[in-house]
């Protein structure tokens, strides 16, 4: 087997093997488990880095087997795949570190980290899937492996949230499968291809293709948290902070958004989707979700719940970006796939730090937390400003590119949506920042713990600071060849020109 076929498989197997080993390890072998976790994460980071370099140089990584007649299992690394794989590899590494610290003394860590690794393996599979069937396989595996994480605490509330999560996502899965099967009946097995498959197809098929498109998007929209199928997301925030971070920033919502990107660009093709008139309604729905999520976030008192509604809003930026017909809009949507991940994971890390260190879960308990936990609070502040779109942070690069894309596509109204959304973001993030730094401490913290010199556990201390630096750097150095922006431009060039 050649190296170009081996690497995608290795990327996938790293986390799968880690999962198996971790499940097999006894509950109390804390150090060994941490070692396996971190080694696997580092190893995968290396593989993904090599593959990304290869894809940049034009190397084709792919491997496929026939599963059933007419259905094949296919892994393939294109530029878009590496965008998502890179995101999940990098953020998984930091989330692992964070999770080790976060779950320090809690029970069932073996189970937790086992499913945690499975979840990341699924994400890697989703990123590298070469056709709809493979994509679906990992998409459902993700659902099943995240469920135990959501209900990890085992409380009544967690179980309720888990039930809801499973109903929503499996329901979405069924709709998605229906769409895939229908499409398979129409055209056979479809590999993802950079300009899609239906350019110049028989007009008689257009009606059916439109219906299939609606099914596919509807199925994927559940995980992407689009209105009106977003209901599971705010509830799922009862999960431990690292899970929320993973759910919101890397795995679940991104899998949905990434799937929509694949369907629009690599199955239908952006030109064809535009021709069928499918982009406009999707843009409206995304725009509505952006504003809806923000408005709902305003009234949430629970910090993680506020962040969850913010996720609903921010993920739809990605969708809105890809519906802007033209390469600049595509770049804006794709780059936000990364930017939102980095920013949101920082925010959830911080929320987790406040919960673990001070016992603070509600926004109105955060008064004066800044001086008590300066590093965490600086990270939170920077990430919140990034979400608002303050330059030079990641969110600004997104907003600027999307705004330019909207104007280039003649969809000027989108700029208005972006501006209103920025103001709403400011309205629900800045009061938190204000409480952190400018309000005096109201009283003793609900449940304060101390760890030596640092403001919190060292495993919890560094991840938000590192992801914060990333969200500054991706904005500050957006013009360099290694930035997410440049990578998204590379993808867009290949999508529109090849």
């Amino acid at each position, binding site marked *: 087997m050649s190296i170009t076929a081996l690497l995608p498989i290795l990327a996938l197997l790293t986390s799968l093997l880690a999962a198996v080993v971790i499940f097999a390890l006894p509950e109390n072998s804390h150090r060994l488990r941490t070692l396996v976790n971190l080694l696997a994460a580092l190893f995968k980071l290396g593989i993904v880095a090599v593959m990304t370099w290869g894809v940049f140089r034009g190397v084709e990584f792919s491997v496929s087997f026939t599963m059933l007649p007419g259905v094949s299992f296919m892994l393939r690394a294109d530029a878009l795949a590496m965008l998502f794989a890179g995101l999940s590899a990098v953020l998984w590494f930091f989330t692992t570190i964070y999770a080790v610290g976060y779950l320090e003394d809690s029970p069932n860590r073996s189970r937790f980290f086992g499913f945690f690794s499975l979840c990341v393996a699924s994400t890697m599979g989703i990123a590298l899937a070469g056709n709809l069937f493979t994509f679906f396989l990992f998409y459902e595996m993700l659902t099943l492996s995240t469920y135990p994480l959501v209900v990890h605490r085992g409380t009544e509330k967690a179980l309720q949230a888990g039930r809801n999560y499973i109903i929503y996502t499996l329901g979405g899965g069924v709709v998605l499968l229906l769409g895939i099967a229908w499409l398979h009946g129409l055209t056979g097995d479809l590999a993802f291809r950079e300009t899609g498959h239906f350019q110049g197809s028989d007009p008689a098929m257009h009606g059916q293709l439109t219906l299939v498109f609606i099914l596919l998007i509807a199925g994927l929209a559940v995980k992407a948290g689009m209105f009106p199928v977003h209901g599971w997301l705010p509830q799922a925030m009862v999960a431990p902070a690292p899970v929320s971070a993973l759910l919101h920033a890397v795995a679940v919502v991104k899998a949905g958004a990434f799937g929509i990107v694949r369907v629009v660009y690599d199955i239908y093709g952006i030109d064809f989707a535009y021709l069928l008139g499918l982009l406009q309604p999707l843009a409206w729905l995304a725009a509505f979700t952006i504003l809806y999520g923000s408005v709902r976030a305003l009234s949430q008192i629970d910090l993680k719940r506020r962040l969850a509604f913010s996720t609903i809003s921010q993920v739809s930026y990605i969708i809105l970006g890809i519906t802007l017909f033209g390469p600049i809009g595509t770049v804006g949507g794709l780059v936000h796939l990364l930017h939102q991940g980095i920013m949101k994971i920082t925010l959830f890390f911080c929320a987790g730090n406040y919960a673990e260190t001070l016992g603070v879960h509600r926004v109105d308990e955060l008064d004066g937390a800044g001086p008590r936990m*300066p590093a965490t609070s600086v990270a939170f502040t920077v990430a919140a*400003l990034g979400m608002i*779109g*303050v*330059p*030079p942070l990641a969110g*600004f*690069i997104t*907003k*600027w590119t999307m*705004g*330019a894309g909207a*104007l*280039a596509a003649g969809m000027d109204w989108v*700029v208005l949506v972006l*501006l209103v959304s*920025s*103001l709403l973001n*400011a309205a629900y993030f*800045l009061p938190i920042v204000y409480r952190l*730094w*400018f309000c*005096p401490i109201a009283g003793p913290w609900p449940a304060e713990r101390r760890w030596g010199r640092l403001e919190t556990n060292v495993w919890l201390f560094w991840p938000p600071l590192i992801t914060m630096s990333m969200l500054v750097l991706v*904005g*500050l*150095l*957006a*013009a*360099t060849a290694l930035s997410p922006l440049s990578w998204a431009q590379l993808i867009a060039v290949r999508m529109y020109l090849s």
Partner: protein
Amino acid sequence: MSGLPPVTLIAASVLLPLLYPLLAARSGWHGLLRAALPLLSMPALLLALLSVAPWTLELPWLLLGSTWMLDEVRRTFLVLTALLWSTAGLYAVGYLGAERLRRFCVFWGLTLSGNLGLVLAGDIASFYTFFALMTFAGYGLVVHDGSDRARFAGRVYLIMALLGEMALLAGFLLVARALDSLLLADIPAAITASNEAALITALFIAGFGVKAGLPLLHFWLPLAHPVAPTPASAVLSGAMIKAGLLGWLLTLPIGEAGWEVAGQFLMLMGFVGSLGAALFGVLQRDPKTVLAWSSISQMGLMSVLVGAAMAAPGQAVLLVPVIALFALHHGLAKGCLFLAVGLVLPAKRILRPLLWLLLALPGLSLLGLPFTSGELAKAAMKNALSTASNLPLAEQLPMLLQAATLATAALLARYGWMLWLKLESGSVAPSVWSGWILATLCSAALFWWLPGVR
């Protein structure tokens, strides 16, 4: 002839104040934090005074591809910004108490970095970045004392600032559609070529108008400028307010034909601000609030000049340097007047007349008395306006300008009176005295230095 960009000095100008907040990470470094305050804008001052303008520095890896530059207009703004922040910084060394010192210093450094950077920025992304840094960090200075009044002022400041930022973002996005580069210098021509020329211009007038205190967008200003600690008030009203003006100069289609109506509107608004602010200002009791209204009034005059430059494109080349000169003159004088509010009457009675004389100097300068920078600024303004042909309001101009002088006089008289009532004998730290005296000397020396600049 263009000079080579002095890269180290440029980097130090922006990075020194930007990284200075890191000193606040340790709680034991109060002395260092204080001592560094007046030094933060020294590299920028050297850059303004020594570097051979114009120069351009390309930073293709930064943001969306950055260009930083210094030309004569920017140099004038840089001199003002660096001088005022240095003297106010010196003043702050002794003025600030130990309480919340670290927080103050963090916001001071960040705001300064933004204010200096936006002057040097030559492209949209850099400019907008530094402008936002100054705006958001400035909030920390406004709400510093934590009183209800400060928090209310801070909220109004922030809401208005956000609305302004959104107007600017929309304007920049719209103009970027018609631009090949992201250079600020290409904006005026691109606006004229754009289909949404009027909308873009309106967005820039309003977006920067918030900062510059344009009437109807001004109401945050008399709330926020006075509540900040005195050295911060000085830089808010002396230097940061000028960022709005500089924004106008850089983005509005000045020197392009076909903007008579917009120019006329801006002139009209300028006079409304200039005269209207006096009506509100003379009713105030807090000398700093009187000064804030006076800033609106003076910015009104500068808006008149910007409007005139749009209305008479042929005169723009002449008017723009005058506007920069006026900004420099007003910024330094206003800074001195603000700093004076934190002074005390010296115990030795014999020194008091000297104190009042020094206190009066910048005020007299604003009135345009002989041998002050105000005389030069006013003369240049009148000269530029009178030679402009087809200027709107040409008939009424002399009358309006006289009325504006009266408005200035009324505000300054009110300020003097309120200061007379406020100042008591006591003692303040030496650095407070030296910061104020240095600022006053700079303001007074401007008259002798300016002809050289021109």
